C-alpha cells in the first residue's frame, strides 16, 4: 500500500487513488490525419518498464484531480509527484 502525496491534498493512503497508466501520451490534435499504425501507436502501445516509469494517477476518492508520478516499478519507490501540465523532472 503506497502512501501517495497528492499535490492538492497531501499524503493519503493508496486506496483513495486510481492508477491511470503511462503518462505524457498526448492525444493527437488531428486524429484524422493519422495512419492506422500511428493511431494504433497512440491507442494501444504502452511501455511496461521495470525501473523508472512516468505514470498518471487520480485522487479518485478525494479531490478527483489527476496528477503525474515518477515511480520505480522494481521497488515501488515514488521518486516524484507533479501536477498535470508541469514539466516532468529530469532524471
Amino acid at each position, binding site marked *: 500500500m*503506497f*502512501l501517495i502525496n497528492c499535490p492538492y491534498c497531501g499524503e493519503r493512503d493508496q486506496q483513495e487513488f486510481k492508477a491511470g497508466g503511462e503518462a505524457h501520451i*498526448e492525444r493527437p490534435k488531428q486524429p*484524422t490525419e493519422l495512419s492506422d499504425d500511428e493511431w494504433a501507436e497512440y*491507442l494501444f502501445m504502452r511501455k511496461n518498464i521495470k525501473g523508472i516509469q512516468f505514470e498518471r494517477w*487520480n485522487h479518485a476518492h478525494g479531490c478527483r484531480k489527476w496528477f503525474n508520478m515518477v515511480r520505480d516499478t522494481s521497488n515501488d*519507490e515514488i521518486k516524484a509527484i507533479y501536477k498535470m501540465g508541469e514539466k516532468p523532472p529530469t532524471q
Partner: protein
Amino acid sequence: MTKNLRVKSSEYIDETNRISFKFNGKTYHGFKGDTLASALLANDVHLVGRSFKYHRPRGIMTSGSEEPNAIVQVNPGTNRTEPNVRATEVEIYEGLEASSQNCWPSVEFDIGGINNFLSPFFPAGFYYKTFMWPASFWEKYEFFIRHSAGLGKSPTTSDPDIYDHRNVHCDVLVVGAGISGIMAAKNAAKNNFKTLLIEEKNELGGSTIYENNQFNKIDNKTPSEWLKKEIEELKNIQNLEIKTRTSVAAYHQYNYLLARENLTDHLEAKNKTNKIRQRLLKIRAKKVILATGALERPLIFNNNDRPGIMLSSAVKKYSEFYGVACGSKNVFFTNNDSAYESALSLYNKGINVQAIIDIREQSESKIVKKVKEAGIKIYWSHTIVDTSGYKRLNSLSIMKLSNDGTSVTGSKISISCDCLGVAGGWTPAVHLYTQSGSKLKFDEEKQIFLPNQNTSEQISVGSCGGDFKIDEIIKNLNHKLKDNLNIKETDLDNIKVEIDQENSKRNIWLLPSDKPLGKTKPFVDYQNDATAKDIKLALREGFRSIEHVKRYTTTGMGTDQGKLGNMHALGIIADTAGVKMGELGTTTFRPPYTPLTFGAIVGRNVGKFFDIFRRTPMNNWHVENKAEFENVGQWKRAWYYPINGETMHQAVQRESKAARESAGILDASTLGKIDIQGSDASEFLNRVYTNAWSKLAIGKCRYGLMLNEDGMVYDDGVTTRLGENHYIMTTTTGGAANVLGKLEDYLQTEWPELDVYLTSVTDHYATASLCGPNSKKILKKIIPDLDLSDESFPHMSFKEAKIGNVQCRIMRISFTGEHSYEINVQASYGKDLWEKCIEAGQEFKITPYGTETMHLLRAEKGFIIVGQDTDGTMTPIDLQMDWIVSKKKYDFIGKRSLYRSDTMREDRKQLVGLLTDDPNIVLEEGAQIVSELNQNPVEMLGHVTSSYFSPNLNKSIALAVVRGGKDMMGKKLFVPMENKNINVTIASPVFYDEKNERLNA
C-alpha cells in the same frame, strides 16, 4: 492415571486459579497463565495430533507460533469453533475444549496411520505421478483426495463474534517485546517519538525474561532480573502504547503493516459475548524497528518426529516459565551451547537429565563445565541414528559421527528417555523483513540469512538482525537506535554486560544414520511430512529452483509455512547440488506470518454492511407495495410489482400492457445525472458524444452516445440544455461514476483550456417517469397551469414547473416509445411526487412498473441497453446506429477508431432483431446462433443479447448480435439448445411502432 509434572511454582502461573478444560473429550486441569500446550504437558500428554500425509503420531514441539505439529480444533461443534489453532498459542480458560485433527476415529487409534507403513508408495510428487492417468478418472480421484485432505473443520454456523478494524499512525513501531524490542521502544518513546510496541504473546520480555544462565550478567544482575526492572519502568513512559496478544501478520511497502489484536480468545465463553473478538490494526509507521527474535531450529535425523521430541528452547521455557517438566527422563541433542542451559534448568529443579549428545568435538564454555560438574553424561561427536516409541519416545540409539559428519562409526549405544530436547541453532525471524521488500544476504560464517538491503525506514535489532549474545545485542542495538532515530544518548550507553563465551556451533544439515537414507525418515517439514529423502528425490528428478523443490515436495507449505525446517531444506539442497546456500536464495516469505481469521480480515463489513447499497427516495413506497428488487450497480431497483401471487412473467406482462394501453410509472431516480456548466460546455459535449450539440436549442433534449477512444460504445443517455452554458447529462445507472471519471480525465489532462465544470447530481434529484397514452392527462392533473400541447412542449424538450411549492424539471423524453415525461424534483420530495402521480393516475389505472418491464418495452422498440446489448466490442455502426455518428464533426472521442481496418470490417457482429418461427418460444439470453446444424465443429455466428415475450405484439422478440447480420435481413438461422434446435429469422430490431407515432399520441 495421569502424572503431574509441575516442578516449581512459577511467577507466571497462578496456582491459586485452577482451570479445567477438555482435550479429546477428557477433562484436565491447568492454571491461569497456562497455554493449552503447557497444561497438556503438565498432564504428561504429548500425543496431540497426527501428521498430514502419513498420519504419524505427533506431539508438541515448540512453545510459540512456529509450532508445526500441535494444531488443534478449538471448541469443536460450537459456533465459535476454529480449526488449525496452535496449542502453544491458546491460553486456557474455564470450559475450553479442544480436539486433535486429521485422525479418525481418534488420535490414539487412527485408521490413516496405515499410510505410515505404505509410505514407500507416497514419495514426493505422489499425487502428480499417480493421478495423471487415465485422464478421465480425475473426477473420481478428486472425490477421494478431497475427502482425505484438510486438517480441521470449518464452522458450519455463522460467527457470533464481532470484529473490528482500526487505523493506527505512529512515529516508531516496534515489533516484538523481547529485550531488544523493549529497549528500542523505551528509548524511542523517551525521545518523543510516538511509539507503538507490539507483542504476540500476552507477556513482555521474550526469552530473556526466563533467562537463567548464571554466567550472563547485565549490570551485575541476571538478564531476567534486569529486564523485569526495565519492563516495570515502561509504565511511567509517555508516548508509548503497548499491545500484547497482537501479532503482525503482514509488512507491506511504505511501512504499512497489518496486525491482529486478540481481545477475547483467552476469556471464558460467558465473557466473550458482545465484545470485539479480534481487531485488525492497519498501521502506518514512520519508522519500523523489527525485534522479532529468532526461531530455534531442530536437527534432522532419522525418526526425529516422535511425540516427546521437542526443541531444546521449548523444554527450557516449559520448565522455567510454566514450571512444567516435559519428561522425567530427559536427553538433549545439540550442535551448540544453548542445550546446556536447558539441561541445567531441568537439573536445577531436580529433574533427571540422562545425557547430552553433542555433534561437536568439544566446548569449553563455563556452562558446559557446569553441566559436566553436575555429572550429566555428554557424548561428544555423537549423533542420534534412530529413535523408538510409536506414540511417545521411549529410547534412542546413538553412534559416533565421522570427522566429516557424513557417516557414523563404532557401536550403537541405546539410551532410554521420554523427552528429547533438540537444539540445532537459531534462525533469525526475517519473515516480516522480507515481506517489506527488503533483501537478505547469507552469512557464511553464521550460516544464516541476515537483513542486508533495506527498502523502507526500518532496522532489524536483536537476534532477528543476527545478534545472539547479550553483549552484541546491546552494543548493536544502541548504535542502530542512535543512527536511525538520530538521538545522542540512550539508556544503553552505560550498561555493563558479562557473558559466557560460547563455542561456535557445528552445522550439519542432514545427520547420517547407520541405515541408508532410503530406509530412514528424517523429517524436514513436520506438518507436511516432507523428509530429506523427498528433497533429494526432487533434485534427482531434475528440480533445481528452490521454489520448485518446495512445491514438489510441499516442504514449507503447511500452516506453519516451514518456520522450523526451511533452512534445513535449503542446506540439504545446497549440499546435494554442491552450491553455496547464498547462491540458492530463499523461498518467498508471504503474508500472513501467522494465519488470520476471516473475521479479522472482513471486520465490520458483514451482513448488511457487506457492500454499500443505495436506495431511491421512493424506496419505501416500493417496499410497501411489495415490489421485488434487483441490484443494479449499488442500487436496489424495483424489479416488478407482483399482485395476488403473480409470477414475475405474469407481473411483467401485465405491467407492459398497462404502460402501452393507459399509463405506467417508473422510478428512474438511479440514472446518473451530471450537471455541466461553463462557457465551453457545448464544445465539450461535441467532443465527448458522437453527434453534434452546438445547435441544440435551450430547453431541448438530445440522445447521445459516448464512445471509448477505441470506438466502442461506452455509455448513452439524454442530455438537456438548461441554459446557454448549462446542461444536465444523464448516464446509465451503472455507468454514472465511470462516465464522470472519464469526463474529468479529458477535461483535466487533454483539454484543460476548456471552461467546463462537472458536478455529480445523481443523488440530488428523484425522477419519476410517467408513460403511456394517458400520461399527459395525469401530468395535467398534477400541474394544471402547464401548457402540455405538442407545440409548446414537444417530444425531446424540457420545461421547468412547480408542483405546489416544489420546483421541478420535466423532460418529455421516452425510453418506451410511448408519450412520456420524466419529472425531476429535489430528492427529498421524491416520494411525495411519486404518490401524487399515483393518486392522479388512479382514474387511468396507472400501473407502477419495474426494471424488467422497462427492459421489455424498450426491446419492443429496439432501444439498446449499454452493457446488455453491447459488451465493449460494439461500435455504433455495429449497432446499426450510423445516424448518430456525425460525419461533419472534425473530432470526438473514438472517431478515428471507427475508420480502423478492423472496425470497418463488414463481417463484424452486428445488432439485429431475431424472431422465432414459433412465436411462443422465448429464446434464452446468451444462446448461440448458427447457420448449419450438421457441421462439427459448427461456426458460432453470434448470440442472443435480449429476449422477451411481448404482450403487446403477442409473440416472442429478441435482440442479437450476429456476424454480418446487417445484410442478413430475413435469413433463417438456428439457435441450438440442449434438447432442441430453435428456428429463427433475422428481422429489424424495431418490433413495435416503427414510425414512432405513439410518441405524440
